[in-house]
């Protein structure tokens, strides 16, 4: 079967884990990995896994985009360089999946709104954050039943799973995730909290979701909706598991989740890494399926 050829930008934890996810895909093929440090472990690993690499940043990839027929790129660098990366690749007709908190394109949580984005042939979609991917499906599962005045999520992450980029830019993570709880989750107000826990052995990623409904919560329907949504996420993140709840306290609904990863690049505790890369892969597959079926054709963007 023909596959859509992909480039991975950023050779850190996320970029490296993506190689494994994309190599397993029936529709995607990882062809290039782009870094900025010739001695990076991620680039070395990419080479050993058969990818072409450059340490010259996105500019090192550009001359090869057309000849290597790259149609989808994943950006796992930082919010600060994403816009420029995206502009350069969109100009060549490459669709961009943004795993940074830059969020210049529409926000995507696969079981909530992926189909909508694929139908619109968006040239840049943003994956929000690991915490967003792990919690927004639940917020949406409540808000599709009844109006949510306030959604709050707490993500606890193993210290070893958080790379230097995220650490140095925690505010971007907070802003992007809070905003997405509203825009994608459907809560009128959203708030995101992140905790980095150094316990040894490392703890699995944990996520708590609190929703305050406007009226008395319909406990049966909300519980059904949440359980159905967990099943949807489990299709691409098998380690996504309900630990406790939903429990109801007045108008508050609380759900306690855990995410175990597949253990591709980092061990299983790094569910945060997995849920992000799995969601990005699923998003790319949805676009790839449409491209392969001839339903959408990516066109170079005219830049004013």
């Amino acid at each position, binding site marked *: 079967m023909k596959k859509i050829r992909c480039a991975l930008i950023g050779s850190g934890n996320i970029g490296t884990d993506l190689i494994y996810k994309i190599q397993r895909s029936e529709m995607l093929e990882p062809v290039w990995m782009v870094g900025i440090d010739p001695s990076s472990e991620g680039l070395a690993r990419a080479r050993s896994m058969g990818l072409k690499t450059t340490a010259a940043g996105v500019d090192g990839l550009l001359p090869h985009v057309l000849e290597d027929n790259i149609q989808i790129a994943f950006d796992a660098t930082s919010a600060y360089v994403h816009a420029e990366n995206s502009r350069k690749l969109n100009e060549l007709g490459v669709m961009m999946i943004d795993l940074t908190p830059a969020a210049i394109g529409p926000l995507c949580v696969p079981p909530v709104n992926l189909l909508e984005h694929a139908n619109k042939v968006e040239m840049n979609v943003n994956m929000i954050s690991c915490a967003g991917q792990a919690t927004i499906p639940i917020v949406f599962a409540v808000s599709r039943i009844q109006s949510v005045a306030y959604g709050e999520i707490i993500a606890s992450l193993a210290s070893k799973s958080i790379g230097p980029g995220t650490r140095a830019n925690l505010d971007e993570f907070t802003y992007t995730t809070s905003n997405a709880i509203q825009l994608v989750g459907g809560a009128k107000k959203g708030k995101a909290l992140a905790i980095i826990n*150094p316990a040894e052995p490392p703890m699995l990623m944990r996520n708590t979701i609190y929703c305050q409904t406007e009226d008395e919560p319909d406990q049966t329907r909300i519980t059904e909706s949440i359980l159905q949504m967990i099943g949807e996420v489990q299709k691409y993140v098998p380690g996504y598991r309900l630990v406790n709840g939903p429990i109801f306290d007045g108008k508050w609904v609380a759900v306690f989740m855990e995410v175990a990863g597949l253990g591709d690049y980092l061990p299983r505790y790094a569910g945060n890494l997995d849920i992000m890369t799995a969601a990005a892969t699923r998003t790319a597959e949805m676009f790839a399926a449409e491209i392969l079926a001839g339903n959408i054709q990516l066109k170079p963007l005219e830049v004013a």
Partner: protein
Amino acid sequence: MNQTQDLKGRKIIIHDMCLRDGMHAKREQMSIEQMVTIATALDDAGVPMIQVTHGAGLGGNSRQHGFAPHSNEEYLRVVVPRLRQAKVSVLLIPGLGTMKELQSAYDCGARSVHVATHCTEADTSPQHIAFARKLGMDTTGFLMMAHLNTPEGLAQQGKLMESYGAQTIYITDSAGYMLPADVKARVAALRTVLKPETEIGFHGHHNMGMGISNSIAAIEEGASRIDASVAGLGAGAGNTPLEVFVAVCERMGIETGCDLFKLMDMAEDIILPLMDHMVRVDRASLTLGYAGVYSTFLLHAKRASERFGVSTRDILIELGRKKMIGGQEDMIVDTAMTMAKERGLLKDVTA
């Protein structure tokens, strides 16, 4: 060091925590009037620094940490203009509070900030520390749950915060777990690696009754800033009781610039009457200190205990075993539910 040092003439900056850590002891429910009464009494007693925010700091208003009746800005706007000499500080925990909120607190008159991270995660604070310095604030790197890092490890974390721009590094005994020798080892390790002009601070909790002795131990090794709160109003068994600490300092000739009798009166006449529960070492708060659990977990664990029928002590011990840290208050309910299920007190919805 074994012989008792002569600390006569040493100058210490005392930082009161009643209106921040004390918020935890009040389940974040402090009125504007109570804030003003306490802040003006502290100011009048010569306390040079007063921290004013939600117990969890900027961005603290949340389901996770409790909703205070007023925003941080509302508290700051009322308190700051009433002070004659004291400087007002805020707490900022990256991952919860943001630079936007720091700017807003600055605009309301805050001039000092504790930028707090867990004792091994200092590298989550560079943007906030740098931004605080850019605003011209007196900037502290506040290493929480400091007993969970070695003296050398903690020193490296402090060095990182210093490199981001922190002017003071605090050893924060959030669990009230440390003994004086633990404190001394950590202050000494920091003193070895930090620049001479970088100050060292100690923030104690009284869960093992060591608040005063730990603070004195810190001063003996070179700390020059001490967090305390009048009548100990704070999380767990409270912070180092400020008026007691000042009395000890007076006896030892350590200069605090505070008026002891005014502080004693304030403890008795203002703070004690507004306590919802006696903030003291009791079965639950002693468990925190003994097991090394974050002091703020105390009231959350008591509530979870009432709701799910598992004892507070059992919940706290389990949280300690699972190595939960400050900010993971959601895991208290989660842990209590899991324990209740194991004991047949609660049914699983998916079962």
